[in-house]
């Protein structure tokens, strides 16, 4: 296996690593980010202030960060998985307490240059922790339901704290991504059947614990026309914007829905609507094609990994990205309730973009180090 260009060697030089980085994926990511700048420019309207420019600056920093993360040895990330997981939880607890003290939902920490949302951080750290856990387990282990209690605990702790914020969208995302990792690790099919059945049975109880505004959103999702000027406004206006865009769109900077402020949160959660109103079905399909290409690329990178940690980590990042895209698009099209999930790389917002880029950095690191061999505990194979 160990032939040429350092592939298969345990220690690679920085130069060798740079050669192993998958540049096509970086180009795809940059293209998607480019669509984001165009949309933010249009949302401003027709200005790089206040969104497009700062988003561009963040993207540049994020890309540099991505490459740095990719160059760091995958064994380091494996060793760091649990400590990072703990840090993520501590950050969550910190904002929960601060939010409690300031009598409201507080979801971010002000770092001065940006606002850090710990719930975005734990999405990635939970994937890291699960990948590390399942790396060390055998096929027999994961078939034992009792063995799964420990990883389940790893998932439920951050989910619970995120729910406390309360941030239903992120909590659901953590659960979905974790479920995918359990599935990929080889957990038996019937266990998923039982869990899904149980979740359906528990729904009425969950309903009881939901905030009023969350209940309202779900109800309105069922029947948006019931309240066209109130809370159903978001969905109705978004559908009008999408539909009136047609096949070819209204043209760049010409989205009347978006620019007359009929469209709410046009620079964050509803940016896909703004883009599609102006660029039409053709533009939207191109964008979806770019997302699909990124996901497909991630797939092949994950499958070519020669170790379980790298595979699970990569696939966790890819699934996380997919869930982001799917929930956001489904939400603005009226297929899913409005839960406040941004469109990755396009919506305005620092933490979401940086956490997605950090995730891609980890994906890239497992790709660069795909042939590195290590034991169940992450040490070098002597």
């Amino acid at each position: 296996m160990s032939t040429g260009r350092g592939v298969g060697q345990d220690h690679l030089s920085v130069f060798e690593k740079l050669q192993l980085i998958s540049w096509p994926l970086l180009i795809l990511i940059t293209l998607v980010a480019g669509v984001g700048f165009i949309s933010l420019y249009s949302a401003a309207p027709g200005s790089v202030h206040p969104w497009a420019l700062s988003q561009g600056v963040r993207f540049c920093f994020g890309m540099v960060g991505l490459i740095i993360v990719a160059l760091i040895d995958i064994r380091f990330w494996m060793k760091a998985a649990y400590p990072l997981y703990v840090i993520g939880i501590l950050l969550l607890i910190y904002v929960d307490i601060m939010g409690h003290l300031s009598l409201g939902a507080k979801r971010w920490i002000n770092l001065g240059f940006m606002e850090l949302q710990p719930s975005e951080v734990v999405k990635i750290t939970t994937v890291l922790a699960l990948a590390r856990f399942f790396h060390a387990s055998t096929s027999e282990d994961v078939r034992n339901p009792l063995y799964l209690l420990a990883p389940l605990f790893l998932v439920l702790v951050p989910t619970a704290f995120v729910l406390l914020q309360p941030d239903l969208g992120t909590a659901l995302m953590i659960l979905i991504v974790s479920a995918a990792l359990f599935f990929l690790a080889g957990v038996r099919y019937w266990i998923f059947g039982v869990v899904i059945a149980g979740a359906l049975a528990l729904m009425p109880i969950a309903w009881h614990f939901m905030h009023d505004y969350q209940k309202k959103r779900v109800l309105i999702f069922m029947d948006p026309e019931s309240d066209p000027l109130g809370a159903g406004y978001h969905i109705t206006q978004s559908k009008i914007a999408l539909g009136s865009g047609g096949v070819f769109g209204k043209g760049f900077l010409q989205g009347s829905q978006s620019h007359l402020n009929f469209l709410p949160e046009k620079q964050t959660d509803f940016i896909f609507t703004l883009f599609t109103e102006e660029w039409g079905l053709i533009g939207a399909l191109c964008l979806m094609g770019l997302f699909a290409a990124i996901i497909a690329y991630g797939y092949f990178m994950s499958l070519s990994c020669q170790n379980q940690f790298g595979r699970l980590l990569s696939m966790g990042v890819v699934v996380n990205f997919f869930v982001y895209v799917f929930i956001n698009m489904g939400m603005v099209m009226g297929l899913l309730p409005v839960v406040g999930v941004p469109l990755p790389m396009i919506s305005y917002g620092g933490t979401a973009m940086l956490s997605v880029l950090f995730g891609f950095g980890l994906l890239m690191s497992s790709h660069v180090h795909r042939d590195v061999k290590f034991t169940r505990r992450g040490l070098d194979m002597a």
Partner: protein
Amino acid sequence: MNRDMERHKEFSRRALMLGVGKIALFSTLAVRLGYLQVFERQKFTTLSDKNRIGLRLLPAQRGEIMDRFGAPLAVNKQDFRALLVPEQSDDVEDTLARLAKLIPISAEEKEEIMVEIDQHHPYAPVLVKEDLTWQDMAKVDLNLPDLPGVSTEEGQMRSYPLSTATAHIIGYVGRVSKAEMTDDPAMSIPGFRIGKSGVEKKYDEILRGQAGEVQSEVNASGREIRELSRTEGKHGHRLTLTLDSDLQMQCQTIISQQPSASAVILDAHTGEVYALCSHPSFDPNVFSSGIPADLWEELLADPTNPLTNKAVAGQYPPGSTFKMMTALAGLESGAIDVNSRVYCPGSWMLGNKAFHCWKHQGHGSIDVVGAIRESCDCFFYEVGHRVGIDALAKMARRMGLGEKLDFDVPGEGAGLIPDTEWKRKRYKQRWEQGETVVAAIGQGYVLATPLQLATMAARIANGGKAVKPILVRSIEDEGSKIPDWPMIGINQAHLDLVHKGMFGVVNDQRGTAYAERIKELPFSMAGKTGSAQVKRITEAQRAAGHASAADLPWKYRDHALFVGYGPVDNPAYAIAVVVEHGLHGGSAAAPLARDIMLAALKRDPRVISTVDDAEKKATQDKLKDKN
């Protein structure tokens, strides 16, 4: 490794299953989008059209600005205007041409309208003409059926009753430029204006208020069918300033005697600015309705800078008006005391370099009071040399120089008080002793704004209270904004000596401004003259007898300055006047300061009552004598 191979296989199998699921979900999205955008397109397009005419903004009334007695400084007056919605007009050019037959629209204006139409969405109304007379509006209204897309509206224009006298301090409003756009929906109201300078700019958000909004259902031709919701706007807050509009006007008239001058007069104890003027000025009413390009060019090219508020932004070497700082630094540090005398032969030597006194024959032996009174340079060279630049700078800063004063008008100059550290940072050079000597008489690097000089005069006059100039007295119904100022901590005996010197400047025959004293009893003033070199006089020119700056071209002549306070006992006001290129503080700046001070004193009930008391006492004394 077998074990991992097995895991890898299982992983791949399951990944494939997940992948199929993802493709299915993504396809659902694509199908849904196609459905919305292809099959339901017509329905949503109609809804979207309906939407976009359904929002109408109600402009909020801009807050008025009043002087301290409630006299208006900036108000809103009603006007009529014509608007055009390009989308509703079949041919914009044709409509405008027909409209031009009814009301005057110049070619220039028409060009601007066309540019504006290009920049906005076709469904957004564009302002065609404002400030229409009632007759003009009636003419347009009568012909509306022939003018598709045109409508008339009643609006409000900003008006400044004091015109040029408050142009700099109140500022003016103007159309929103691209760079000034924010997400305030009011910005999209046709003809909306924001503060561009002065108080109008600084307090724009408070004055602006909040635009209201009407959401209504409308048919395809834009007619309102029914109102769905209405949010009333909030009118902007009213500002009450500390200015006295009568005094402001008198002050502007007084400084207009010179080609380019500025003046500040403030309450010595509270810092309230009673008048702040800069001459030449401009008419803010013309600016508010849109500045004609040729007028703008002319104002920009004028060497006397009519657009600049020189009282706040102008930075000048303070010259001899700085000598009080040197005196106080010397007294407070103990380098000199009341009895210290310096012999002035007409120049002062540092090593082999001579520093000249303005009086070539010299002042002879002189003490601190005399040195202020007669503005002896040699005395202050010596004192400056003794205390050093850092102590000098520290004193100047404590008295309000060298730093911005957080004044309520944008564009405030910071001035400059140099010290050793400043020079190291700025020029990476050591401070030279000769520079201390120059700084001690307010030349060299030292710079101050008229506002800072007035603040300095107030701090001297009020016994060392750290007042700062205040312009806004209250916002709407909130209480007074005037704080209690802390004491700086300067020995009263030392201030008394300075007061004595400044009294002498104006009221002693040997003083540099004796000719400009207030002769009308019982009003009185103390002060200090100054002149600031604009062009250095070289040693060669001095030898050639070219010491007089009067034969230089205007723009190279010295600036004339005066700072002061009045009345002499129990000061109420502090003042600073700077006459650009006015040559001598005593002859150019002092008479202006005297007239402004006298006007202020005559208007002040506190001062008048003491006058009445004095008169009564005099009459009583006379009666007593008779008895």
